[in-house]
């Protein structure tokens, strides 16, 4: 009699697509990864022993920040007052500063001024193209 018993084969799990899955996961995580990016205004602090540079008062674009109020004074523009840093930003963008001989701004503020307001003024002055910005704190 011929035996018809089949040989039992060990069943294999196909591992060929495993690499596809692994690479897919790799690519997925690489693409969806959010880089932790921070944004900030870069400031170069003056050296401790740095001697103050003298400039003509007429060339300086003076900004006084008291609470929310911003006051500017400059020989060419005159004296103006704004009720908030936001208003100051809008008005500064409309101002003609191209003919200023030195783009130097002096921000005068006090200890009690909110840091947010201070940074708002600093950012608008930086964005407007002032090359040198000096910050002075009133005693």
């Amino acid at each position, binding site marked *: 009699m011929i035996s018809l018993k089949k040989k039992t084969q060990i069943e294999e799990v196909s591992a060929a697509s495993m690499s596809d899955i692994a690479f897919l996961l790799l690519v997925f995580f690489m693409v969806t990864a959010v880089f932790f990016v921070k944004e900030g*205004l870069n400031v170069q602090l003056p050296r401790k022993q740095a001697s103050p540079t003298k400039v003509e008062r007429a060339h300086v674009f003076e900004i006084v920040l008291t609470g929310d109020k911003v006051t500017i004074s400059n020989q060419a523009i005159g004296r103006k007052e704004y009720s908030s840093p936001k208003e100051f930003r809008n008005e500064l963008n409309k101002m003609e500063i191209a003919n200023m001989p030195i783009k130097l701004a002096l921000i005068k503020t006090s200890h009690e001024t909110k840091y947010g307001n*201070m*940074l708002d003024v600093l950012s608008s002055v930086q964005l407007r193209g002032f090359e040198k910005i000096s910050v002075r704190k009133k005693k």
Partner: protein
Amino acid sequence: MIRRKRQAPNVPVSSMADIAFLLIVFFMVTSVLDTDPDIPILLPDVPGGEQLNKKIANIYLSADKNKTVYYNTMRMTLPEAISHVRAKMATTPDFKVLIHADKDLSYGEVDNAFEMLKEIGALKVSLITQTTQGGGLNNK
């Protein structure tokens, strides 16, 4: 003459999965998570911020009643944080200090930190603002 059947050459791909998983594990292990301490700091929302990716030290100045100060993820006093910055500066050239200060904090407090940084010669500072692309510190 016996002619052998020519077999198509095949590249073994069975180890490909191992390589891929190895890469996944490698990147998972070596990636450093940059974390901020869990303190409510409302960063100023002003435009003009530049993206930062330098080797840096983070100082956090909160506006709560205790005026909490963090250096990276450790809570400490401002002079202690400054001394950590000084220690880090010795090993890292082209060093930048990131100041995360609350917008309701008085400018005097931040200026105090500036004066201390000037004292140790850490002159490159970045004042962190709210990001335009998400991420960063949570808002209140």
